[in-house]
């Protein structure tokens, strides 16, 4: 990780582990009475959200505030962006306002990289989801969540078996998770109907299965992806019911999992479509832990990008 976090490809395995370690150290502070660190006092973090995502924005906002940064939220709706202002002009406005870091969520794949590479701004850029490309902090918080449930995994995920299930084609969460989990040594199986798998999957270091039932035998992690109902209108699958029968995590499939297996979902969930209520609320589900870990991991990313070092547990200043 240099100045930006645009893709999981920006991180080596050891750098990713370092972020998880920093998040672990920060969690000790979050559990204590004084939740705020002075690390980023006087620094400005801008949340630049061209797509609505209250969850992700709040997570980044909390993370920045716990590090004492000033936070500016800039959402496209009702702003100059909705009046046709370009990404470039918006970026340069933020530059003029003195942003130290820009957290960008954008509907276009590559928007975060354009912002970082174009010379429009000098701030660090953190990709908070770009189109159907990547969502690296989601993958990091998922890895953190997995590690907290499997304490044997410290510096790598060797031997861990993960099934990622659903709309791989359109999922930035899937792309970042495949990259990070395989980088850390996990064995990843993609499970989806062929229509929702990219043709270039052959180049990914994963197994591919169209059969959910056989794919989840012996896995340690089942990661469900949100399925958008407009995919049905575009004939990616015939009906919600058929999708749910083939690729939904229902009670029977939940019961077929090993005792130690965990169920993940990046949210928001379509209960009854890709995941049944029983599965979402079962003791195997770590969905809420994912949410709370999101703040810690984003703190760790901001800390390392703007603070310039891994957190050792010592609080200065």
């Amino acid at each position: 990780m240099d100045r930006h976090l645009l893709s999981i490809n920006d991180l080596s395995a050891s750098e990713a582990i370092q972020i998880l370690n920093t998040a672990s150290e920060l969690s000790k502070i979050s559990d204590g009475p004084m939740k705020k660190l002075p690390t980023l006092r006087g620094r400005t973090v801008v949340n630049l959200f061209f797509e609505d995502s209250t969850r992700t924005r709040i997570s980044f906002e909390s993370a920045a505030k716990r590090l004492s940064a000033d936070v500016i939220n800039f959402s496209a709706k009702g702003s100059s962006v909705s009046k046709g202002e370009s990404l470039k002009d918006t970026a340069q406005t933020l530059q003029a306002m003195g942003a130290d870091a820009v957290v960008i969520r954008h509907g276009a794949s590559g928007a975060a990289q354009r912002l970082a590479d174009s010379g429009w701004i000098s701030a660090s850029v953190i990709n908070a989801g770009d189109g159907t490309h990547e969502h690296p902090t989601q993958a990091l918080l998922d890895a953190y969540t997995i590690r907290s449930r499997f304490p044997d995994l410290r510096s790598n995920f060797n031997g861990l078996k993960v099934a990622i299930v659903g709309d791989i084609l359109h999922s930035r969460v899937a792309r970042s998770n495949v990259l990070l989990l395989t980088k850390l040594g996990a064995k990843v199986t993609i499970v989806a109907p062929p229509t929702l798998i990219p043709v270039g999957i052959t180049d990914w270091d994963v197994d591919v299965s169209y059969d959910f039932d056989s794919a989840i035998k012996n896995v340690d992690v089942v990661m469900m992806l949100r399925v958008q109902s407009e995919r049905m209108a575009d004939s990616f699958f015939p009906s919600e019911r058929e999708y749910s029968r083939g690729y939904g995590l229902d009670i029977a499939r939940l019961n077929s999992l090993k005792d130690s297996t965990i169920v993940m979902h990046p949210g928001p969930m379509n209960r009854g479509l890709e995941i049944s209520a029983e599965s979402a609320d079962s003791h195997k589900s770590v969905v809420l832990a994912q949410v709370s870990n999101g703040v810690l991991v984003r703190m760790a990313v901001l800390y390392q990008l703007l603070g310039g070092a891994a957190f050792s547990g010592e609080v200065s200043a």
Partner: protein
Amino acid sequence: MEYTIKNARMLDGAIVDVEISNGVIKNIGNGLNSGEMLDAQKHLLIPGLVDLHTHLREPGREDSETVATGSAAAAKGGFTAISAMANTFPVADTAGVVEQVFRLGREAGLCDVFPIGAVTQGLEGKKLAELGAMANSKAQVRIFSDDGKCVSDPLLMRRALEYVKTFNGIIAQHAQEPALTVGSQMNEGIVSSRLGLAGWPAVAEEAIIARDILLAEHVGSRLHICHLTTAGGVDLVRFAKARGIQVTAEVTPHHLLLTDELVSNYDPVFKVNPPLRTEVDVNALRKGLADGTIDIVGTDHAPHPTEDKDCEWQSAAFGMVGLETALSVVAKAMIETKLLDWNGLVNRMSIAPAKIAGYTNHGQNVAKGSAANLTIVDTTANWIVDRNTLASKSKNTPFQGMTLPTQVLHTFLNGELVLRNSKIVKSTNGGSN
């Protein structure tokens, strides 16, 4: 005006003097001395290049290119004839618009500008445009294309192919099945899957090529496939030619040199339609151009203003400028690799396109009595592409900073020097016949 080109190197290696008078080559020999002298210093003299695929943007988008600036770019690139695509505003779907473009070309006087007419009204793919009126206009249109869009309705395509037979016209198809390419951003494959950009699959091009060669066979008409980009497309054209179907095909310089790996940084300067493909495709295109399956190089020169490229990938316009780099890029892809020699290159970039289009004053061998549409190129020079020095009004070149072989030195249009020492010479007579 009269000129004598001294010390020109012919394609066969002979060093000769070439006398030009009244727009034609009057004499070729040694010790010729009439008119103004231009010393070619033993550089290569070839017929002026001919492009069947040029977007000049006028009328309507004069912020990106005009007929005059595009003509200057063409002359700098060694072209003496270019073909203005119909996707202007208004669309070139009437005699009035094609005559306007034709007239603007004459006024600029740097290159012969032959308008292409739209196949369908407004490029909407619903009703035939007045093809006959355009053919019979002063512009004498023979090539019709909805380029930028595909004539996707098979019945309409059949009718267009049949209809243009009355005046020996040709339909130039932009082969892109629209239903397979909704929202497409780049070649569908390994790179698009990694980048999360919506794919433009090879099959969307090949399905239309397959359909149209069968239609052309059925009705006995001439079909031209614009900007072929896929290995499968080359195979289909090879099959069609073996069957004796009247099909010709074109490849752009950029598809001969660049691959979809370049999209990895999301720089929209590499966004083009049809998209950059894979190395396998590039090699198949080169081989197809070498063996004549692909008849010609067409630039698909597509100027766009800065703001249409200085943005995120998805919002950016498709297209690249190419007139000023075309010869050098083809030399790099085909001559440096020994797939073609200069005779072959001149065939693909001048003689064959002029023949397809019926531009009788162009693409003639350098010989006594031929029209003096000529260019002189330094085949030993290398140059570095600098977008700020382009004559084109737009600067969207994907070759920025690249070192390319072969430099265009001088260009004659109908006997008048329009480019001297790589610089535009203002035409004195405002055009030619």
